[in-house]
């Protein structure tokens, strides 16, 4: 029971990161391997705001999310849009975007190493005990989970209850047909990429409240987010949510029951299972 609750609390934050990535890949068709760097950058900014100006991380989101949105929008327009325009087919765009975002990954990682050093960083925020179902959990984890739920709910309302959200989902399903019904696909793609980056940054801010991080850790999170995205089905927000919770529970269980050094093995076991039996994702439909 304790494992499941801890797993769900962790999975909530993973979900935000993975939803960010699934928007970027599902709608903008960019496999953003530098996603984890956005997350770590958000961790450092939150840390800096908290230690220098005593800004509560939860309020920090209000600053960090818009910045991440703007930065990711600029990255898309300046670096990735040219690749989209030059690609002759989906395969070419995939290879190009993978290589370009690898470049960004190493560039950002190197810049963060320069600015913050390679040391592990953490800070104490709401490091108190919180009782839930007769067991104790870190209050910061519970708060982070709550905040993640609020953000996810807001995103859900945007995607499923507004015209613009519907347009974004339409592009995820089929960019060609979306264009036919008068949706500005290029604009929707840029918006989704920026929105995905902002969500990932929110996830980063929340994770920094209870997790020890360093400048070169982004890749680990990118890896987890990628696997969640594939488990949930590319571009599927609900699938990503469920998959993130499964991954959170599986990781906590393996770390607690077998060995903390084997969390990635747990992730991979899940990944292989999905690839072999449901490559289209949990809720995905078989491609025709």
């Amino acid at each position, binding site marked *: 029971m304790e494992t499941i609750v801890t797993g769900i609390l962790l999975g909530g934050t993973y979900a935000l990161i993975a939803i960010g990535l699934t928007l970027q890949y599902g709608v903008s068709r960019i496999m953003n391997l530098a996603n984890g760097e956005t997350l770590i950058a958000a961790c450092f900014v939150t840390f800096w705001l908290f230690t220098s100006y005593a800004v509560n991380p939860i309020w920090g989101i209000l600053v960090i999310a818009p910045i991440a949105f703007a930065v990711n929008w600029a990255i898309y327009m300046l670096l990735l849009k040219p690749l989209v325009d030059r690609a002759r087919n989906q395969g070419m765009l995939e290879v190009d975007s993978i290589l370009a975002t690898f470049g960004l990954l190493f560039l950002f990682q190197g810049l963060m190493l320069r600015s913050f050093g390679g040391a592990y960083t953490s800070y104490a925020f709401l490091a108190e005990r919180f009782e839930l179902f007769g067991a104790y959990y870190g209050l910061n984890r519970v708060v982070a989970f709550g905040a993640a739920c609020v953000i996810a709910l807001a995103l859900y309302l945007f995607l499923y209850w507004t015209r613009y959200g519907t347009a974004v989902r339409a592009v995820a399903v089929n960019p060609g047909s979306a264009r036919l019904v008068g949706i500005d696909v290029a604009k929707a793609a840029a918006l989704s990429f920026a929105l995905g980056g902002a969500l990932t940054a929110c996830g980063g801010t929340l994770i920094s409240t209870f997790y020890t991080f360093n400048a070169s850790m982004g890749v680990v999170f990118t890896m987890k987010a990628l696997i969640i995205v594939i488990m949930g089905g590319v571009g599927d927000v609900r699938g990503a949510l469920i998959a993130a919770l499964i991954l959170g529970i599986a990781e906590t269980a393996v770390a607690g029951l077998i060995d903390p050094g*084997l*969390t990635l093995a747990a992730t991979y076991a899940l990944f292989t299972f999905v*690839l072999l039996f449901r490559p289209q994702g949990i809720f995905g439909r078989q491609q025709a």
Partner: protein
Amino acid sequence: MTRLSSGEVLTGILGAATLGVLALLPLADQGYYLSLAINMVLFAALCTAWTLFSGPTHYVSLATAAFYGLGTYTVGLGLDYLPFPVLVVMGGVVAAILAGLVGAATLRISGVYFVIFTFGLAELVRQIVSYTQVKLSSRMGLYVFTDFTERDIYWMLLGLTAVVFITGWLINRSRLGFAMQIIGNDETVAKHSGIDTAKLKIILFMISGAFIGIAGAIIAPRYSYVEPPGAFSPMISFLVVIMALLGGTRKLWGPLVGVIPFTIVMDIVSVRFPNDTSIVMGLAFLVIVYLLPDGITGRLEQFWAYLKKPRAAPEAAPVEERA
């Protein structure tokens, strides 16, 4: 098998002559230049082996570090019990088995899954190796003591590179190579002409992985102490991708053109600016994507074609432009 053309014979003779000259290098210098040359030959072998698979399929494989580390580890584990040449072969076999498993899980479906799977593969293998090692022997590293000098390692790697080249050339001449060309150009066409695309890709991935494993095994005596974080360092995978793509993957010798300058660059950077290696690698990736999409050799070929083309004739309607 067709008969050799005169051009191929010439290339073969030139290649053998270059190999002979390169083999003399340790006689001239045993210090810094030999050590730099070992790095170059190592990456030449790794990048050419990588290109065997990733060149025709366009799948960016990041599994290099996993195969390489397995090769190194096989030598480290077995050195007390088995002779070195046997271990080198075993390193190749173990890597090929892993390649087969990864290929079977991912190469039947789209390429993105393959990239993602190999992205964390080295880290996964590292975790499993560390875990089993701690469970079984309660220590982390392995000592690799042999009588090999840097010079022996250099010669062995040079020999391996030659074998990789010959294998690549033989594959290109075989039915497998022909099939891979079709798959690379259009997978749907390949499937419709009765090619078992998944099976061929897995076979090629295993060959490529085996060579990378062998390279890892040969280099093991150089480290004398092998630890999981070092042996499975993900940097190797990324460096191989950068060097191979920088050179260009269309020709068998393409990666070499990237290996030589980039090994020197990385050598300078790691000495003078040890904290900025990631920045240099990041910039290298961006340069490849935006300025050299087909690598240096691709650009050279374009330039060559431009020179050869008669100036007067205006370009015929470009067919590929339509998308």
